[in-house]
């Protein structure tokens, strides 16, 4: 373990600059934020990619910046800044080419050394993150940190405001950047054009959404205030774990069975205050275009009418898997609720209930530098509500002959500090840790 007093020197020589679109976007180009976008304003996505020295051979930071300039010609919305409408105070994005913040750093460990002792607090050194505000027009929405390790390998740390888009958008963004690095011609897509809300009718919904809830007004500093300190930890699920799960739970997908397992474990930890409702997010198969930017993920709310802590895993898994998307998809409800007062109320989604996010189809390992995939791609959420959130994403599996101990999934949990210790014990009991 690295002694704490060395942490502030672990990643040093931070140099900040800005990278924007190469072409002029034009004056008075505005991207309106929908109700769903505004629900996400207190959430931020953090993504870290680790690359070996071989993958970045012959590549300089200047090359990376240059590729970013070309990428941002299409993604100029990410280079804008938040402004509030003069009449209603509703936030929107002014596409003024201000740019994303580019941070360069140096670390004295090698990539392998880092990965051995990788944990959440250490990983925060690789992602330069600042919340939006208090000066909205001068707060970048995206930060990209490139850290150079002793061995020549690098890490890419992206901090992304969730109002711009979901984790699938982030993955698309980074993958497209990889294509620009390889000088592959990338087609720009109309899906990246700015949105104008002037003519859309406000959706009607009969009831309040379960998966998003109101929070106190945060004003111009978009930081979520938790009632307790949140802690993040992660663990791997190996082939052996999965086959054991498969034996217990029948014909559901790996994600659904992992969800069921964790739901029950957390319910046991929170005895008396079990989470009866969970939120499950996954990619919308209709929005499959690799250029899509936006909050398009399906948000489902699943309610258990029985005690979760003592329930049968099969029953839970079936409940999660069988619920029809159309019935439980809450996106319209959330949109309607936010639009009721024109986006003036502040909402959260992640952590309003225990939230599970399925990043299986996010294409996390499609990014290639010099033809090589990242050693590790890790996503997490900054700004999770008190109920907690779980991200589940696949790890790259190597050889065809899968050995039992090979990690297949990475599970990243953000929960109140007090519950983490008990949960770890519970997971040990279930032979997962």
């Amino acid at each position, binding site marked *: 373990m690295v002694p704490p007093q060395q942490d502030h020197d672990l990643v040093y020589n931070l140099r900040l600059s*800005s990278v924007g679109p190469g072409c002029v976007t034009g004056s008075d180009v505005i991207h309106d934020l929908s109700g769903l976008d505004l629900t996400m304003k207190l959430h931020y996505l953090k993504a870290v990619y680790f690359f070996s020295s071989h993958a970045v051979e012959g590549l300089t930071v200047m090359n990376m910046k240059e590729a970013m300039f070309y990428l941002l010609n299409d993604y100029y919305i990410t280079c804008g*800044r938040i402004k509030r409408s003069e009449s209603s105070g509703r936030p929107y994005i002014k596409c003024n080419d201000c740019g994303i913040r580019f941070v360069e750093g140096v670390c004295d460990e090698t990539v392998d050394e880092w990965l051995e002792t990788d944990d959440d607090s250490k990983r925060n050194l690789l992602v330069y993150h600042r919340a939006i505000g208090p000066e909205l027009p*001068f707060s970048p929405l995206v930060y990209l940190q490139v850290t150079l390790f002793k061995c020549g390998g690098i890490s890419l740390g992206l901090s992304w405001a969730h109002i711009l888009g979901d984790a699938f958008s982030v993955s698309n963004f980074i993958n497209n950047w990889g294509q620009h690095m390889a000088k592959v011609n990338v087609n720009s897509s109309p899906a990246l054009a700015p949105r104008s809300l002037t003519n859309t009718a406000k959706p009607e919904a009969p009831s309040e959404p379960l998966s998003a809830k109101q929070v106190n007004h945060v004003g111009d500093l978009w930081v979520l205030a938790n009632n307790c300190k949140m802690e993040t930890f992660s663990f791997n699920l190996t082939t052996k774990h999965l086959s054991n799960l498969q034996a217990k739970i029948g014909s559901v997908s790996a994600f659904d069975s992992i969800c069921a397992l964790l739901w029950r474990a957390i319910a046991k930890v929170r005895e008396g205050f079990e989470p009866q409702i969970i939120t499950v997010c996954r990619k919308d198969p209709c929005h499959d275009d690799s250029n899509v930017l936006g909050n398009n993920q399906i948000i489902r709310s699943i309610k258990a009418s029985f005690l979760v802590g003592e329930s049968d895993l099969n029953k839970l898994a079936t409940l999660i898997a069988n619920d029809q998307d159309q019935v439980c998809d809450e996106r319209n409800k959330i949109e309607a609720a936010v639009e009721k007062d024109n986006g003036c109320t502040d909402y959260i989604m992640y952590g309003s209930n225990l939230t599970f996010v399925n990043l299986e189809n996010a294409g996390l390992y499609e990014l290639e530098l010099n033809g090589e995939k990242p050693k590790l791609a890790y996503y997490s959420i900054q700004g999770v509500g008190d109920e907690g959130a779980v991200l589940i994403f696949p790890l790259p599996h190597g050889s065809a002959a899968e050995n039992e101990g090979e990690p297949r999934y990475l599970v990243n949990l953000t929960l109140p500090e007090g519950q983490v210790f008990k949960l770890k014990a519970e997971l040990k009991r279930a032979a997962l840790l």
Partner: protein
Amino acid sequence: MPHFSNSVQLKYVKLGYQYLVNHILTLTLIPVMAGVLIEVLRLGPAGIVSLWNSLHFDLVQILCSCFFIIFVATVYFMSKPRSIYLVDYACYKPPVTCRVPFATFMEHSRLNLSNNPKSVEFQMRILERSGLGEETCLPPAIHYIPPTPTMEAARGEAEIVIFSAMDSLFKKTGLKPKDVDILIVNCSLFSPTPSLSAMVINKYKLRSNIKSFNLSGMGCSAGLISIDLARDLLQVHPNSNAVVVSTEIITPNYYQGKERAMLLPNCLFRMGGAAILLSNRHSERWRAKYRLVHVVRTHKGADDKAYRCVFEEEDKEGNVGISLSKDLMAIAGEALKSNITTIGPLVLPASEQLLFLLTLIGRKIFNPKWKPYIPDFKQAFEHFCIHAGGRAVIDELQKNLQLSAEHVEASRMTLHRFGNTSSSSLWYEMSYIEAKGRMKKGDRVWQIAFGSGFKCNSAVWKCNRTIKTPKDGPWADCIQRYPVHIPEVVKL
């Protein structure tokens, strides 16, 4: 009087007067020739032959007359100054990675000057009214928060700008490095050892007997000073090529303090450079783009106020910056007047000079209250390249010289697209006129530059051949967007 002078009748009177005075020689010659012709016709061929016979020429007289004519012709051709041709020139186009949009400049400004909101506010007001566009470029070192202007970064910028421009020039003209006889580099604020001209000689392996010069500290008008120097050298050295490189290196000179008078250059100065090939070789006269007609240099440094109006100094905190005084525009106006007084007689047609002389005499003798006559320079020149020092400079000159919007279009659009690139801005403006397809054979161009000191320098070029719209060059990818309307105040 004003109503009368606006009338159409007076306009035609003016036109008639100009035609009369400017072609006076032709107009007096025609009656004389007519008279001679009538006389000849009257005499008849026989009369002419008898006239010829009565002149009694003998051999000695004829030979002496011939020698005399040949002698005068030789003296004339020997003492005629060599024609200096501008074969071609190349301007540096910065890469998109150096682009600085308004919003980015302001955000960085707020972060760099976080303790001085008033200075940030000042910069924002300057930028809004500057006339710059969203595509101007700063070197990579200045993009950092805070900027990291090391000497290495400055040399890096110099290499990129100068070598790009020179590579482009060599390619366009087919010039071989071994054929460069004279090299003049001017860069006002960055003067390392070895000099930038030595850097160029090293990179391109130029000859060991090259005549190289490096001009520093001479401000934004140094470009024309270099042209003047090249011209003088080319008078002395026959059959030679001279390469002039004009640039300004921004990296080491970005002001990092908070004094308002010194923050102004940060808002206006941008990356740019140009390389020009001049030659006195006879073989170049067919493919050269322009011929140099006049260079007029005016220095007002003897006046203390003029000397101090653009002054590099340290502020209270020890940050070095260039302080611009509030009388800058007034001093520029004075310098321009001086320059015009010298260049006027050289370029103005006789009609304008006569009018000016008459009004001058009138003011001295009859009534000092008569308004001084401002000669109409539009009759002397087809194109104007006014150094894009800032919007105020262009506005002032447009007013003083009574130029139309189209005449100053090249200057305004260069300021918008490239910012104030110091000594090379005149070449971006020439390039704009060529890109618009307006440069025709015989067109006269007037380049005016102002610089610290305080100097006002002018150069007059005559277009040697009609120039087709170039396919490359700094304006190639954006000329169709120009001219753009530049608002008084841009809303940031």
